[in-house]
Each structure stands twice: as C-alpha cells, then as structure tokens.
C-alpha cells in the first residue's frame, strides 16, 4: 500500500510529499479497509450461519428481507441500533460501559496480521502468530469485566466459565500451532503461508516439486493432527457449540451478556463473530495454505515487483484477488464446519470440557510437537546437526527423507491418538462405574 500511495502522490500528482505523510496515508487506508471488512464479515457470517443451520434442520432460513434474505443482517443491525440501552441500577456503570469495548477492540487488532493474499497484509510482524493469540486473550478480560460489572449471578457465572474455558484451551491451541513455527522457521504468518507452496509436499521440504500452492501443512500427519486439535480448541476459544458453555442459554440465560442490550450487546456479538471469522481464517492460513492455491504462484511470477520490473501490474491485482478468494473460500468452509458442529452436537458439561482439554488435547499436542521435531530432523538435518541417519545426496534423497518422515510421524501420531483415546475411554468408564457402585449414584443402578 505504501508503494501505491507513493506512486499516486509523488509520481502521478507530483506532490513531493514527505515519507511520513505517505506512510500515514497508506496505513490509514489499510486500517479503514480492515475496519470496513470486519463488520461486513460479521453481517455476512450471521446470515450465512442462519441459512446454513436452517438447511441442516430441513428449514429455509431467513429469506424475506432483500433477495433471499441477504439484507436480513442489515435489518437486525437497525433493530439493534434502535433498542434501548439498559444499564442495571446496581451495575458498575463505568466497567459495564468499558467491557464491550475491551472485548471487541482486540479482535480488530487481530486483523492486522492476517495475510489476505500475496503481499497483502497490514503489518507483517515477525511475531505475527504470537501477536494474534496474545491479543485474542485480552478480549477475555472484557468478558470478565462484563460479568463482574453486571452484578448478576448468571453474568458472573458465564464470565467465570468463559475465562476458565478460554484460558484452558489456549494451551492446546498454541501447542498445536508450534509445529507450523517449526516447519516454516518463522512466526510471521506470511512466512507460514509462503512455506505451503508446492503440491501435497511442501516446497520447503522438497524444493523440486511444482509450485501449485497445494503444499498445505494439513497433508502431513503432524499438520493433520495439529489441525484437528487446533480446530477443537478454536471452537472452545470462539465459544461455539459444543463448547458454548459461557453463554449456555438453557442454563445461565446468556452468560456474561445477560445484562446487555442494544449496541453494547451488538458489540459482544460483533466481537464473537469477528473472533470466529479470524479463527477460521487462521485455521485456513496455518493448515490449509491461506491464500495459496493453484494459479496464485504463477500470477505472482508474472506480476510487477522489485525482482521482476518487467511484470504487468494487472497480475498484481489478479494475484491478490485470487489469493483473497482462496482464503475466504477456505474460511467460509471452516465456518460451515462450525455451523455443522452446532447443528450436530449438544453442549458439553464444564467438567467434560476440562477433562477433554487437559487429559486428551494437551498430551496429544505435546506428542505432536515431538513428531514435528522428528519431521524437521529427518527432512532437514544432516550429520552436521548430529542427525545423520539418512544421508542422501541430491534430489531423490529429499523425497526419500520426506517419505520416511511421513511414515514415522504417522505411526507416532496414530499410536498417540489411539493410546490417549483408550485411556480416556477407560477413565470415563471407571468413573461411571464408581458413580453407579458407590453411594454417589446419580441414577439408580440398572439391573442386568
């Protein structure tokens, strides 16, 4: 964006503006775009979710306002704006006002490091991944503020549940993402996406494969297991069914949002849907190649850049459009999975959630880090690094290393999954048996 603004202001209009003006304008444009994109995504996602879940329940869904109900979210927004803002008498007024802001602002920051297409990123932070998850934790503070300030027992219960859940599930989420940092050798999200070129085999592992933008990490056993774990953890972070415990409407009204109405309620809603969008987008970015896809690499090679001054700027635009299309298609696909999960599964209990997170997901992701380390060792290390088990020179050597790494990590991960699942099933059976045998029986013992 700096280049574009510089070109327009200095070259085209001849204004000779100083560097800082160009910098400021380009950043303001980017920020404006992101601030416009985020609420529009929320509008679309609410409509998308309602239509999709209606179809899953053999209904039609909202189809009255506008063509096929496309203006329904706008109507909902107007309704939200015109609602009365009610603040409880005994609420902590200032904190009650601040809570939705604290909850919604961090998720907008997360947009800053999301790569939309080749060279399309607001800020390519070297620690993008860390920033993304660090800033997402701040909105938890907003949830707790909301629950506390409302002076309502349901709100406080919901806030406590939200904090407990988000804090526990950040651990498996981040542990499962560590593999991507190891694979790409960077925390920059752009670098992670660029490491996923190729064709089912990443070009960073085997440089000779054709770059069709399909070397997604999910095609490796390590990446697949990490994807499953991360997506489950993301559901918990985004408070989606089956982990919508903080706002369990059948138990605690609406959780921390109970005492909110009008635009403040809409802010929480906005924050939640932006978070869900971003979690889907980050899943697509880290596991499914983000903007990578067939054709993008070719368009980039044709486009105008510092390396390729003869390129056509039309290809820059086309590459960006295709990349954004791939990213959004993948994101909406994951959001569809989220909606399908909501349609299929009931809500977990808080103890089930904790058991699953601490006894299953965290050990599994830890073993996955071991697999990831083995993957790196087998595919990239040689005797120089003290791992000269397989030393092949030249091109077939890389492929053979890749196959060996695939087989080893597959065996480790499948065994780990099978072992942990069995342990958890046995543990569950034992607890059930203890409940029925002991005096703590919740249901009368069933006779054979």
């Amino acid at each position, binding site marked *: 964006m700096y280049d574009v603004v510089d070109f327009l202001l200095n070259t085209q209009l001849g204004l000779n503006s100083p560097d800082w003006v160009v910098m400021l304008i380009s950043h303001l444009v980017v920020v404006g775009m992101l601030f416009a994109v985020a609420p529009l995504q929320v509008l679309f996602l609410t409509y998308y979710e309602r239509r*999709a879940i209606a*179809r*899953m*329940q*053999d*209904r*039609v869904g909202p*189809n009255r306002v506008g063509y096929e109900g496309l203006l329904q979210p706008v109507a909902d927004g107007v309704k939200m704006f015109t609602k009365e803002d009610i603040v409880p008498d005994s609420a902590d007024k200032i904190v009650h006002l601040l809570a939705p802001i604290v909850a919604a602002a961090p998720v907008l920051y997360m947009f800053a490091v999301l790569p939309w297409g080749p060279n399309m990123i607001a800020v390519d932070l070297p620690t993008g991944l860390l920033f993304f998850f660090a800033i997402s934790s701040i909105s938890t503070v907003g949830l707790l503020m909301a629950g506390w300030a409302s002076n309502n027992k349901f709100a406080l219960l919901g806030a406590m549940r939200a904090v407990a859940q988000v804090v526990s599930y950040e651990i498996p989420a981040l542990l499962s993402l560590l593999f991507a940092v190891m694979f790409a050798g960077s925390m920059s999200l752009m670098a992670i996406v660029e490491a996923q070129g190729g064709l089912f085999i990443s070009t960073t592992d085997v440089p000779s494969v054709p770059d069709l933008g399909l070397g997604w990490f999910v095609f490796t056993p390590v990446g697949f297991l990490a994807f499953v774990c991360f997506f489950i953890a993301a559901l918990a972070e985004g408070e989606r069914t089956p982990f919508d415990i903080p706002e369990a409407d059948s138990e605690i009204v609406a959780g921390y949002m109970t005492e909110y109405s009008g635009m403040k309620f809409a802010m929480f809603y906005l924050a939640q849907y932006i978070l869900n969008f971003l979690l889907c987008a980050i899943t697509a970015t880290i596991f499914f190649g983000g903007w990578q896809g067939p054709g993008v690499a070719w368009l980039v090679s044709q486009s105008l850049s510092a390396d390729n001054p003869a390129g056509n700027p039309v290809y820059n635009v086309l590459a960006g459009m295709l990349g954004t299309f791939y990213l959004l298609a993948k994101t909406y696909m994951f959001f569809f999975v989220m909606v*399908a*999960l909501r*349609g*299929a*599964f009931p809500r977990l209990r808080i103890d089930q959630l904790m058991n699953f997170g601490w006894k299953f997901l965290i050990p599994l992701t830890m073993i996955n880090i071991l697999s990831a380390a083995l993957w790196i060792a087998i595919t990239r290390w040689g005797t120089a690094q003290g791992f000269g088990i397989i030393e092949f020179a030249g091109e077939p050597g890389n492929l053979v290393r890749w196959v060996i790494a695939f087989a080893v990590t597959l065996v480790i991960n499948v065994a780990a*999954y*099978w072992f942990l*699942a*069995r342990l*958890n*099933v046995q543990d569950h059976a034992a607890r059930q048996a203890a409940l029925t045998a002991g005096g703590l029986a919740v249901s009368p013992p069933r006779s054979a």
Partner: protein
Amino acid sequence: MSNDTLTHSVTFTEAPAALTVVVDPTPQIARGSAVIVERRRPKAAGWSLLQGLGVVVDHWRKSFRKLDDPTQIAGTFTTEYPEERLPLPEAYRNMPILLFDDATGHELCTSCFQCQRICPPQVIHMTQAKDPETGKPVPAVSEFIIEYDACMSCGFCAEVCPFDAIKMDHDFELSTANHPSLTVHKAGLLRPVSYYQSIAPTFWAEAEASAYKKLEANKKRRPASIGIAPQMIEQVKAAHELRDDQQEADSPPAPVAIAPALDAGRAATPATASAAPAASDGDLPTDKAARLAAIRARNEAKKAAEQAAPAQAQPAAEGAATALTTPDAPLTDALPAASERTAPPAPATPDAPLDEKAARLAAIRARNAAKKAAQAEEE
C-alpha cells in the same frame, strides 16, 4: 388384475415359512418378542462424532431438494406461507359465519337460539325479527352478534344449527389492530351459500336439500323484506323499483287485469323489455320466489276475504297470483295448479326477479282490493 392378485396371494402364503427364523436369540418381553438390531461399532474413538456430523451435512445437502414425498426423511418441506398456501381441509373450522341464499337474499337463520344456548364462551347474541305490522315474532333474525375475540372455534354452533344457517369459516387471517372490529354484527357475518359451497362442497351437498326445504318453509312466514341479508337488500330493492316503475306505467288499477297487462307490457313497451333482461343478469333465476310470492298473495287475499267473505275478491286475487306465477303460460293451465299450492314447473323467464317483486306488489294490491271489497260489503 386377477393374475396380479393370484401371484400376490401365493407369495403371501409362502412368505411366513421362509421368514420363521428372523432373530436367533429372540428375547421375550412382556409385550411379545423384541428384535435386536446389530449396529456397527464405531471403528475408533471419535468416529461416531463424525457419523453424527455426516447426518447433519447430509440433511444440508438434501435440503436443496423439495420434500414432496412424505416417505422422504430429508428435504425442505416449508410452504412459503403468504405466497404459497396449503389447501385447508373442508372440516377446518375457524370462526362462525351466517349463510344467506344467493338467489333471494334470504338468510337461512330463523333465530331459533340454539347456537346462543350451546355456545360455551357465550359469545353469540341475537334478536328475533318481528313483523312490523302485527308485532309478532317472525322466523328471521334482526340482529346477530358474534364476539370473534372470545370465540373458541369449537364449532358447536354449526353442529347444533337445525337450519344449516351457521357454519364455520376457513378464513383465519383475522388479526387486526382494531379490537372492537372483532365484535361482528350480522352484516359482517353473512356470506352467500355459494361461498360456503366453495370452501366445503361435500358438506354443503349433504346439507343442501334439507336447508333449502326449511328455508322455503320459513320464507313464507317472513313479511316484506324481513330476513333478507342486508347486503342483498339494495339489489332486491333495485329490482323492486324497476318492477314498480314498470307496473305504474303498464298495469291498470284493477288487479284482475294484471296478467294481460303484464304480458302486454313486456311485449309492447320497448323500455321495459330492454330493462328487464338487464335486471335479470344477476343470478336470480328462480321463479320459485315468484311462485312463493304468488302463494303469499293468495293467502293474504284469503285472509282478507275471510274477514268479510266477498265473492268477487277471491278470483281477483287468484287471478293475480297465477298470472304472476307463470307469466308466459295460459291462464287456464296455471289456475288449477296454483290453487293446489304445488306450483307447476314454470319455464324460467329471464326476468324472474321482477316477477317476484311483481308478485309481492300484486299480493299487496290484491289484499287492498279484498279489504276494499270487504269494507264495501260492510257498508
């Protein structure tokens, strides 16, 4: 056809022998034997979660197809209500309505109070009509109110009505911001019989014969325009006025001469000849009404005659009556039939409603004439 049934019966008789062993260890429970269905065990932990997800996604995929066959378990079956509507069953009942005869405008209700009595929430109220001259009650209703806001749509009123005058409507879109409008008066309750026939054809076919028979009997006891639906009064009045004009122009004062005058009038004056078919364009083809009016006229004449028994009034009235009953028929043919009170199948004339009115007019004139005669006799 016979071949089909034969093969079918053969398979049926052979089938039980083949199906004797269904489940090997058939468990016996109190209500018979239970069938144990073997389900596939989940292959791995988490597999059943994917299966559940598969069901949901399958429903999503199939929901783009319309569910038209009720045996399907997936597919959209939504009827987009304001645009699409499911056909209502005939027996659907929402709010009660009153019926009136399309042809004559006569209400079927006789104010028997059965519905008012049976109504559980007591929302039906009615006033019986009275003859304005004698003050005696007439089998007709002068005001009928149903409070739709409190009606519970039980349909008892329609079931109990001996005259098939009150029926349950199919219109369910009654929501309104105007609450008092839900207290519906007679004019708002009345619907033509043809409307009820259109929403419940078989039910009306069952009730039609007895309903009309009773209506015919009741019409005789309703003087003037009593018992005619308010929305039909204008129509009937218009027909009346047309007939009055015609009569004033054509008929001589003597009631005896009405019949020839009518014939002559219709044939001679081009004005009335052109006006008459126009008036008859409405679907009121019954000469029945005319016949009835004639009978009434004769009865009135008789009544008047009984007071003084004038010899000359009787034939006059009868002449008028028969002339109106069959305007086109020769006087000699119609006379004996009319006197027996069973009207002959008169040819349907295009200006039947006019005849009815004319008959009534003639009846009044006949009565007046008879009275005058009686007075003259007394003097």
